[in-house]
């Protein structure tokens, strides 16, 4: 019943993203319309993939660091991606893919640094150190980014922040193909980690006693979630809120078992972002809202409602 409801919401969100927009496209001619085929369809699919990936990464990282405030950008990835993007703009790299590739590289750099710092205590990846390292690396990258922006002559650098604040305006079939191909592996790794993550939720020591390979598991989850987020940042910038709140909302509905939580988070995140992007395009047309604002405006009331129901039971 719950699955049917979530499925219906997901399909509804996807259809609204394809059928609604600032341009009027008659329902009958929707599939033959250029606007639907080259703009809305890839954008809806990308929104779904990005939202789902963010929520899935968020759920995985929350389980890994056992902190309800964890979200995909906690571990320094947004700072690294921003630095990469600004460097690409400052160097006047004129390729249409320069910005996403540089952001991806920056996010990977931040991830490697955080990972290395997370291992300072020895071979074990310490979740508390991971969080601190993530915040520190993120702050450092942001400082370097701001220094470049304020010292550089290029006026377009200020626009780098516009891109970084997130949005799906760059969606195309190319970006959909890229993310879809790339994301399969980290998504599969995260979904396969569902059962050991349940054990990890009991604490590292009990999980070890129950037969979970704790250290490799933590590394796998960290790397998969970060690699997934890095790809998402490259195509859509930093879209907040989805990765933080959707996992909690799904936990309220489905409980703590990751076998159901992880797929539900993917569907829920995808539906939320597809719906939010539709609102972003339609609400103030011909202008467009930043999608991150809409995810919060749509998501927070829904989350508050779920919290109330959850605590009432």
């Amino acid at each position: 019943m719950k699955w049917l409801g979530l499925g219906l919401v997901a399909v509804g969100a996807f259809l609204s993203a394809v059928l609604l927009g600032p341009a009027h496209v008659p329902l009958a001619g929707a599939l033959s319309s250029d606007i639907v085929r080259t703009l809305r369809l890839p954008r809806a699919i990308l929104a779904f993939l990005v939202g789902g990936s963010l929520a899935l990464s968020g759920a995985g990282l929350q389980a890994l660091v056992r902190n309800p405030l964890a979200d995909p950008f906690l571990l320094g990835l947004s700072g690294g991606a921003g630095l990469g993007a600004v460097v690409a703009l400052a160097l006047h790299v004129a390729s249409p893919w320069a910005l996403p590739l540089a952001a991806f590289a920056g996010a990977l750099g931040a991830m490697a640094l955080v990972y290395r710092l997370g291992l300072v205590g020895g071979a074990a990846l310490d979740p508390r150190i991971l969080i601190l390292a993530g915040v520190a690396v993120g702050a450092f990258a942001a400082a370097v980014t701001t220094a470049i922006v304020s010292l550089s002559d290029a006026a377009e650098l200020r626009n780098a922040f516009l891109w970084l604040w997130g949005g799906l305006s760059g969606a195309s079939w190319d970006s959909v193909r890229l993310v879809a191909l790339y994301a399969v592996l980290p998504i599969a790794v995260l979904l396969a980690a569902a059962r050991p993550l349940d054990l990890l939720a009991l604490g590292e020591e009990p999980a070890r006693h129950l037969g979970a390979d704790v250290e490799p598991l933590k590394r796998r989850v960290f790397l998969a979630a970060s690699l997934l987020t890095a790809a998402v940042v490259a195509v859509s910038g930093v879209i907040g809120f989805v990765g933080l709140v959707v996992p909690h909302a799904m936990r309220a509905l489905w409980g703590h078992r990751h076998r159901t939580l992880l797929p539900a988070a993917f569907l829920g995140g995808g539906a939320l972002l597809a719906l939010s992007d539709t609102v972003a395009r339609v609400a103030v047309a011909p202008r467009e809202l930043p999608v991150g604002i809409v995810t919060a405006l749509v998501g927070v009331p829904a989350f508050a409602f779920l919290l109330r129901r959850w605590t009432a039971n």
Partner: protein
Amino acid sequence: MRRWAHRTHLAGLLALAAGAVCGRGGRAPSGPLAVTDDAGRTLTLSAPARRIVSLSPAVTELVFALGAGDRLVGRTTWCDYPPAARAVPSVGDGLNPNIEAVAARRPDLVVLYRSPLNETAARQLERLGIAAAVVRQDRLEDVARAARLVGRLVGQEARAEALADTLTRLVTQPAPRAHTRVAFVVWDTPPMVIGAGSYLDQLATLAGVENVFHDIGPASAVVALETLATRDPDVIAVLRDSAASGPPAFARRAEWQVIRAVRERRFVYLTGSLFGRPGPRAPQAAAELRRLTEAPAR
């Protein structure tokens, strides 16, 4: 017939511009000058300014147009017009001015672009005993007021009056009928366009060019690509510095091909120094926009 009408309109614009340049410089009045700037602050000068620091490219252009360019002792890194401005020492980028660098030029007048940070800077300069005027120069109608204000401060009232008259006549004359529909795209991810609140939109009206996003109130706004596609501009105008060449990077992206003007590679390139700052060259900018949109670069 219509074409001829446009030509005469263009000729009119240029004649207006020429008139402004030929205006006679007035004699400086004696006695102290008291002027209220665009932030509502009153500043007093004992005599017309002799050492001026301009912290905005538009003001630099204005000071030269008023015939006081030889009294400039400091400018911003962005001040590149007229060419003589480059000979003036730079004191920084003018956005959050370095007060010490400005004071080191020993100016008796500093003119700043109106922004909250610059108003703070103006107060600091005053504490150092340096007169500072804050000038708003965002739209065409600001230029006439700015010309009068700066004209008084540098003792060139007659020239300022002539320039202000020209610009006021430019704003009030009937606009020619629009023949080309243009979208001004200032950024691509996300797509950002120029709306009615911008100086560029005013130039478009003067040039007889229709901004397809004239219904958007603010100076600029983010829009969806499908909105850009359905507005279907004949030409896409891109602001850029002169160093760049060839179509903008977004022209090669698959999703942008939905827009006819992108598919047909109908772009015009507007240099920031002429089109990005409201100033005495507004008539030339309008004429140039007209010329460019009549034969866009492929």
